[in-house]
């Protein structure tokens, strides 16, 4: 069968639950670690970034308003769907990162497990970081975490799939919606993930995946007045860029997660990436008083 011509895949963006090409009509060449051509990925424009923000904002009400149990189910469904498509992702990750098949398989396994880990967090994070406060007075109040809104995520450059999911999953597990800029040189696993998300009950617009030049896409996202937070992981290697983006983000006081060096994305993630994009709301109520007769239980 060696003479069969393979069917090549046209990689597309994932925005608002659909798979558009870049509105700019541009693509760029993606190659493997040895420089062999793999595919042409969409070279997203600023307009694509803005469209993705619109889609993410539109999806925010429904996703943040869904029950935590429901969000957990959806995240677990992503793991289920990935499990069935493992072979595809092993191949894409191996190509992208120049890994052996078994190393790439480890990465994909860890990535699937990461979805499962976050699936279990959706209905627990509020109990861990929220709670009732012992107010001195005839009041009770509760502090509960709430998603901050639309989060722009610059995915790590080196870890094309595990790194990507490690920064994306906590954002949506906590009820935010995301605009993700995939690893610039290795965007293909991210673009394929869009296909998995689309068939995993994740509502359209909750996750939007862009491929292209990180610096070009990050600038309008950092400056966008309708983006509430930004994760600068993917700008980490370029300190000047990260600083510039942080300055732009100050304009509407976006929550900024600064780049932290991560040696090993497979290590236990902890809850920091979830709490980074949560607000705390404290709601007060008077309790009234029953007087002496009711005061001793």
């Amino acid at each position, binding site marked *: 069968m060696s003479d069969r011509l393979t069917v090549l895949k046209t990689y597309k963006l994932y925005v608002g639950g659909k798979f558009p090409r870049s509105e700019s009509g541009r693509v760029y060449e993606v190659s493997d670690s040895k420089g062999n051509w793999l595919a042409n990925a969409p070279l997203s424009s600023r307009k694509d970034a803005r469209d993705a923000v619109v889609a993410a904002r539109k999806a925010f009400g429904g996703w943040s308003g869904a029950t935590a149990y429901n969000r957990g189910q959806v995240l677990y469904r992503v793991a289920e769907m990935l499990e069935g498509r493992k072979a595809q992702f092993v191949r894409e990750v191996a190509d992208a990162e120049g890994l052996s098949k078994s190393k790439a398989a480890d990465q994909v396994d860890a990535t699937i497990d990461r979805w499962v880990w976050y699936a279990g967090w959706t209905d627990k994070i509020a109990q*861990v*970081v929220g709670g009732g*406060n*012992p*107010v*001195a*007075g005839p*009041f009770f*109040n509760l*502090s509960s975490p709430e998603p*901050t809104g639309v989060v722009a995520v610059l995915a790590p450059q080196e870890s094309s799939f595990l790194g990507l999911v490690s920064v994306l999953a906590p954002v949506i597990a906590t009820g935010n919606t995301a605009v993700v800029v995939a690893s610039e040189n290795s965007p293909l696993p991210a673009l394929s993930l869009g296909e998995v998300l689309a068939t995993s009950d994740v509502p359209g617009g909750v996750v939007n995946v862009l491929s292209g030049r990180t610096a070009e896409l990050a600038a309008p996202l950092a400056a966008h007045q309708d983006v*509430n937070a930004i994760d600068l992981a993917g700008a980490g290697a370029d*300190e000047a860029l*990260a*600083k510039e983006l*942080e*300055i732009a*983000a*100050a*304009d*509407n*006081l976006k*929550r900024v997660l600064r780049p932290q060096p991560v040696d090993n994305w497979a290590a236990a993630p*902890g809850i*920091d990436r979830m709490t980074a994009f949560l*607000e*705390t*709301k*404290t*709601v*007060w*109520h*008077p309790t009234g008083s029953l007087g002496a007769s009711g005061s001793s239980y």
Partner: protein
Amino acid sequence: MASASASAFEYAPAPESRSVVDIAPSYGLFIDGEFTEAADGKVFKTVSPATEEVLSEIAQAGEADVDRAVKAARKAFEKWSALPGSERAKYLFRIARIIQERSRELAVLETLDNGKPIKETRDADLPLVAAHFFYYAGWADKLDHAGFGTSPRPLGVAGQVIPWNFPLLMLAWKIAPALATGNTVVLKPAETTPLSALFFADICRQAGLPRGVVNILPGYGDTGAALVGHPDVNKVAFTGSTAVGKEIARTVAGSRKKLTLELGGKGANIVFDDAPIDQAVEGIVNGIFFNQGQVCCAGSRLLVQESIQDELLESLKRRLSTLRLGDPLDKNTDIGAINSAEQLSRITTLVEAGEAEGAERWSAACELPSSGYWFAPTLFTNVTQAHTIARDEIFGPVLSVLSFRTPDEAVAKANNTQYGLSAGIWSEKGSRILAVANKLRAGVVWSNTFNKFDPTSPFGGYKESGFGREGGRHGLEAYLDV
């Protein structure tokens, strides 16, 4: 001063004695456990906003002083952070107790320097100041259990810049968690209200706090900028205006400094038709006229359900006519002085813009004292969401009234702002309160109450009201390496 409706029931003056506080003619900077002059010898005066009397002359910190204070704090950090938490706790408990002992003195001092009524400093500010130190004292030896990992580390030197509206309370919000977690601090109080922070320096002395752990640098914005930008500061905490907050965020961009910001607000106070009207009126008054409305979480936008608008406004105006404006040291005073001439002119400008844009102004008829900075309780009707007074923070005793018909509309209007600090809901219906509270994008929501604070309860904003939380377990995070 009495309201215009003065009658046979006029109050006799009940002034608190100012003899309990001894204000020196001049104060230095507090660096490394000692009062010292500014390196360049600069000074400024602090006045009582109620009388324009000069209270004292204060050393004004410059860049060299900031550097000296940061160095002192850095040196002190080594030992302070290495102390067992239980020892740090005891220092903080001592401070809390000394504040309680000296609370009458501090309340009078704060009223003199800030212009707010003595009943507020005495009954709200000072008890909360002591409570914050008491609360965070207890955390110092329990940080392993706070949910930030098994041995969370302090950050180092905290540079803290606080506003003039709650001078001592904001100091407590900043210093108590910083010290409990093992950081040392350099704090800049506002230029119009430096005195209570300098008295706090004396409390640190009485408590035997090691030198350099707390440093106080009075000054203007440039002092704050020097502190925030100092390369050896590890953490920046700021409470103040959104514009300055953005500037600070730009300054620390690209550095490893951890940043928390408590900024402006334009809180919506939503009154539904089933609300207990009398309580709601008290809540509205408390929401916007507490501390002359110079409160970041003030309920400055009243959203009232259309069907009860007339009735509510009538009650509200009647109530406002009974507020007593005048000598802040008088125990009967409800409305004190505006903090500064500058702030008064800001309020006046915005109120003029409100009138120019067609909103209808109503001010309580009350006589304003001839010296000092004063503004009568004011409300605007006929306000639309596009009006400047409905959008910009006024930070004064000015309420904008808007109406709504449905809960959805109330939520949409409440959230239609760049800010997200506070909101209020007034309704007898519990399910409605919970549903509306859920949808409001604000860091603190008061249902059937307003402007309640407690050291155990996280406080802070969404959106352009800043980030980070102060108070409670959450307040520790800002000062830990997590």
